[in-house]
């Protein structure tokens, strides 16, 4: 009986489909633990934070509506991945002329200040969010997280991890060059 013999191929076919799915999962770079971000494509959440450095103006939404794309970076002096990411931010600010707004998250202002004074300050403006209230509005899950806000104030990218060389070259700079 021919149909019966075909039936024996069913387990093999199932295995092939599963193997195909697992192979695709491994090779496509898909991260099953990724939260994703519902903010991408929507107007940036409110920006409202006291200035980290005394005498500087507080951070407001006006900083996101300058007609130029900006990067918003949440960091903390106690966060090791932030330390790893820091040189990349410095380079983006100095070499690529990107405007970066920094927010120290759950970080004592004096500690965040000391950290920036020691490592260098890549931020055009920097504030702090001691209790993480504003950060919740940004859907923050931890630090570092980085948002690209386009000239119209729309969130274009949301990195829920330290940004890497690859992210800068493949995702950030192309969007910035396209005049987002």
């Amino acid at each position, binding site marked *: 009986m021919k149909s019966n013999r075909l039936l024996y191929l069913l387990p093999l076919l199932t295995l092939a489909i599963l193997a195909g799915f697992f192979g695709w999962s491994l090779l496509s770079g898909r991260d099953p633990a990724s*939260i994703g971000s*519902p903010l991408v494509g929507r107007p940036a959440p409110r920006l409202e934070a006291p200035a980290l450095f005394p005498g500087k103006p507080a951070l407001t939404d006006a900083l996101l509506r300058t007609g130029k794309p900006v990067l918003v970076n949440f960091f903390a002096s106690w966060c090791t991945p932030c330390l790893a990411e820091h040189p990349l931010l410095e380079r983006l600010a100095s070499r690529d002329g990107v405007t970066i707004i920094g927010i120290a998250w759950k970080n004592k202002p004096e500690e965040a200040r000391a950290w920036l004074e020691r490592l260098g300050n890549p931020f055009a403006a920097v504030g702090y969010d001691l209790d993480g209230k504003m950060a*919740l*509005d940004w859907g923050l*899950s931890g630090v570092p997280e980085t948002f690209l806000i386009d000239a119209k104030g729309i969130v274009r990218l949301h990195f829920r991890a330290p940004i890497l060389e690859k992210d800068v070259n493949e995702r950030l700079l192309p969007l910035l060059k396209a005049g987002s």
Partner: protein
Amino acid sequence: MTRPARSAVLALAVLATASVLTSARAVEPDEMLPDPALEARAREISRELRCVVCQNQSVDDSNAEVAHDIRRAVRERLVAGDSDSQVRDYMVARYGDYVLMKPPFRMRTLVLWLGAPLVLLLGALGLWWTALRRPPPTPPAPLSEAEKEKVAALLDSGASDSGAGDAPRPRDDG
């Protein structure tokens, strides 16, 4: 009070204490709302919200910083007069469907919701199909004359053997 009654009361007291202790979870005293009804709603909502940095723990269970912040925000929204679903929508707008312990029924989650029942249904259909195709069992063929004689001979020799012990049996060398 009789002895069994007293030990029953004691057991109940221990159980009640244990349940109070386990229901405390990760919520810290300073997070709690003074209004018990609102606090109960906050607890209910935060049990359905997933801590976004701890894979599979509810916000109510987790000690993570973000879970603490979300618990606080839930309570703030409730005090501001939001309904339960408004609070949930507020979190989904910021953290996506990931923040819900129970995934919503959507096109993207169709396989998740319907996959297992579908496989069960397919299995049942397959069983039914093979049962239909199987030919009905045929009754065994009746014994031939030669076999009938052989059975009778065996039964007879068995009857004459009984009680014969190890004595040599009568043989028919034909």
